[in-house]
């Protein structure tokens, strides 16, 4: 399997532990990630709120590049990136918009390649392929699967899972031999967007998510969004200080759990570089 890979700003920067985890885990599954050449910003941040056309043109160019390089699938681990790519894909279904965007980015945007988020990547690989590859079933893990706000939304753009009560991550985690819990904050906002400007909100939201998972019997959180990971993992110490309680909730990327089940070590997957580690 050779899949186009759009890392976006996060995976080469603050979330390079996620990239490490993905690369280790996918090479064990014999999936090659071909990073698309000369990719640019996905347009999720400033462009998204300031200039509609720019916010379409940026991801449109990335789509065009992936298509030029012949990738049928384009994997964007960050949900903001994948949402932007899907938005552009939806927009270019209109021939007039397609022509206009192609002109702006000076490349033929076709919007044909399939955009995958982190969960969809493992769905693509398939539970049938994962199950027999499991060497170390994750019996000690009781995970709360956390989707965050953007993986399933906006539903008419991303068309992924049930946007209020999703369950796709649970099926993958269950295939690895781990248990999952039913809990209440699967799709609530973690506050990552406010990290820089209003920490109070972030800490409150993160606290609700982490403690609700714990109350429902989870011993770790699984995420499929690098932003959520930063927020829930890095900020967890601050949450503990603010609310005066010990949470100690390990936050895994979905690829971490897959990697562990495949027999990879925490070091190989970069789990040792997380802020909260197993006690």
């Amino acid at each position, binding site marked *: 399997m050779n899949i186009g890979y759009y890392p976006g700003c996060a995976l080469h920067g603050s979330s390079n532990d996620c990239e490490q985890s993905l690369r280790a885990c996918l090479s064990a599954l014999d999936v090659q990630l071909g990073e698309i050449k000369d990719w640019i910003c996905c347009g999720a941040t400033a462009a998204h709120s300031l200039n509609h056309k720019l916010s379409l043109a940026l991801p449109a160019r990335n789509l065009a590049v992936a298509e030029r390089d012949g990738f049928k699938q384009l994997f964007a681990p960050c949900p903001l990136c994948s949402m932007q790519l899907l938005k552009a894909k939806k927009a270019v279904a209109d021939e007039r918009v397609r022509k206009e965007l192609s002109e702006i980015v000076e490349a033929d945007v076709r919007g044909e390649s399939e955009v995958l988020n982190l969960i969809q990547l493992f769905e693509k690989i398939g539970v049938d392929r994962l199950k027999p590859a499991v060497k170390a079933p994750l019996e000690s893990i009781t995970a709360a699967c956390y989707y965050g706000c953007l993986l399933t939304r906006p539903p008419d753009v991303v068309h992924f899972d*049930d*946007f*209020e*009560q999703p369950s796709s991550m649970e099926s993958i985690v269950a295939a690895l031999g781990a248990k999952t819990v039913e809990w*209440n*904050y699967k799709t*609530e906002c973690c506050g990552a967007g406010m990290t820089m400007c209003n920490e109070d909100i972030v800490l409150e939201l993160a606290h609700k998510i982490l403690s*609700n998972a714990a*109350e429902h019997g989870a011993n770790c959180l699984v995420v499929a969004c690098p932003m959520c990971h930063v927020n829930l993992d890095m900020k967890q110490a601050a949450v503990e200080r603010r609310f005066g309680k010990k949470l100690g909730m390990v936050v895994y990327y979905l690829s971490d759990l897959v990697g562990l089940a495949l027999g990879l070590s925490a070091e190989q997957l970069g789990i040792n570089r997380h802020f909260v580690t197993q006690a």
Partner: protein
Amino acid sequence: MSRIGVFTCWCGENIARTVDVDEVAKRVAELPGVRCSLNYKYMCSDPGQAIVREKIATEKLDGVVVASCSPHMHLKTFRKAAQAAGLNPYLVEMANIREQCSWVHHDRVQATAKAFEIIRLSVEKARNDAALQPIRVPVTRRALVIGGGVAGIQAALDIADAGHEVVMVEREPSIGGKMAGLSETFPTLDCSQCILTPRMVEVGQHPRIKLYSYSEVEKVEGFVGNFRITIRQKARYVDVSKCTGCGECWIICPLKRNPSEFDYGMGMRPAIYIPFPQAVPARPVIDKSQCAKLIRNGCGLCEKKCKAEAINFKDEDRLVEEAVGAVVVATGYKLYSIAKSQPKATLAGYGEYGYGKYKDVIDSLQFERLVSASGPTGGVLKRPSDGAIPKSVVFISCVGSRDNAKGLPYCSKICCMYTAKHTMLYKHKVHDGQAHVFYMDIRAGGKGYDEFVRRAIEQDGAQYYRGRVSKITQEGGKLVVRGADTLAGMPVTIEADLVVLAAAMRPADGIEELAQKLNIGCDEFGFLLESHPKLRPVETNTAGIFIAGACHSPKDIPEAVAQASAAASKVQVMLAADELTREPEIAAINEQTCAACFTCIRTCPYHAIDRAELRTPRGAFIKNTARVNPGLCMGCGTCVSVCPSKSADLQGFTDQQVYAMVESLA
């Protein structure tokens, strides 16, 4: 035709302001075939009509063109005037120089020229008019009422009390509809059953009402005044004529844990059951999907117990035919299904409210049963999960309604009122409880309605929040309802014991199939279409078929009843005489030239054309032909456009007339 009178109207200033009526009348007088041309300030007034009548007599006119407003407005007026003067009314034409000319133009010169052209076309049409006679159709003086809810009951009783026979078809085992399951009704809080059940009994005992319960309309044939209805009587496995309704069977039935349809799953019923004690007819049915005897030839206790020997496990569906002259459709509504899975791709559910996932999230009709004295809890409000008395209840209005994202943009109209009622009923039962309501707007138009909502808020202390609920979750036995209070500009979180969702109203199941059988229209949501939203609110586009109640649009009880009485009075007018007259502007087929290809039969939207044989007076076969049923034809002209041999024509709008009009333009 060569003695046409043209009467141009000023319509006060309406026409004369933009059209030079003197000039038009002068030019029209020169047209071939025009005998006289006059204009007058108000042609529809008494003196105006007198001019028309007088000219018909003095000038011996054989055709009349009135150049004024739309024929919808005054064609009938002028036809009557012509008839009074001894002229066949179908020799009157209207040239619409108001809506189609003076009202839509500013330039006087151009408008005058256009008015002249419009009149010229009408003169050409009038010259080719033929005298027509109204069609007389015999009437079967009986009516069918489909649906035995409050609207159907009202319509049936009105018609029957007026002296006509009524056939009522109800698909549930008992009549009564949704209203029979309600607790108390707004804005008076009178008990729903107390006002409805006497009416149900009246239906059951009325000498002129024939009730088919547990039955459905299978097939509809015929036309206005002469419908033949095939009714499917579903196998009840109980002989209604023998059964005394003693109740031994449903007491002995061991399979008692089946969710009750009447209680919307809030209570249980046996496999042989009557939906509720006041049912009409008070005769049980056996649910064949649950009865052990019918599934695997077991049990059979009810048969042994029944002294009247009314149980018949060999019962089968029966088809019966009834002849009626008119039909009232009153099939009612159902609630929008709130959960994720939806019957149609155009609809979307509310996963965020957890309906179907959390037992204590229920819909409004389920709440009605929980507070009803006849309900599964005997009128004590106990929540479904553990039977505890809820101390905090959240009501959410507009669940589905007015939500484009869910596919239902319309307002369900009654939810604001019944939600206010629910908060009151709750407070009257649980004095230390608190009701919370999330709403978008409070729509309480109606007699005593707004006062009622104010009472719920001011006297019974319901807490209203203007805003939507984003999510409901469960924490330690409590439902955590998170929403917005947009007036305070604050998020709200309420820990509730019970959540009641005011789901949108949708037309009852099977409405589209029924509409197809009856050949009437429905809108994109399945609600039946009236013929005119203001002036013909209970008629449909198929003559002889009327609508009443929530099958037409969301309605409360008073409105449904009023509409049912309106439909009933329309039916009474129809059934008042042995014959009814219809306008003769319908299709006719030249049976001599008809090639019997029957393309018209396949395309006719009203199923008004039949195959027929042409025979000599002695009965020898000549040829096959298509033949128009004058009782059914609505004069749409589809057959005229599809007939390859040009044998179909529309009386009053013949090809010849239309061609003459077009040619006169050139």
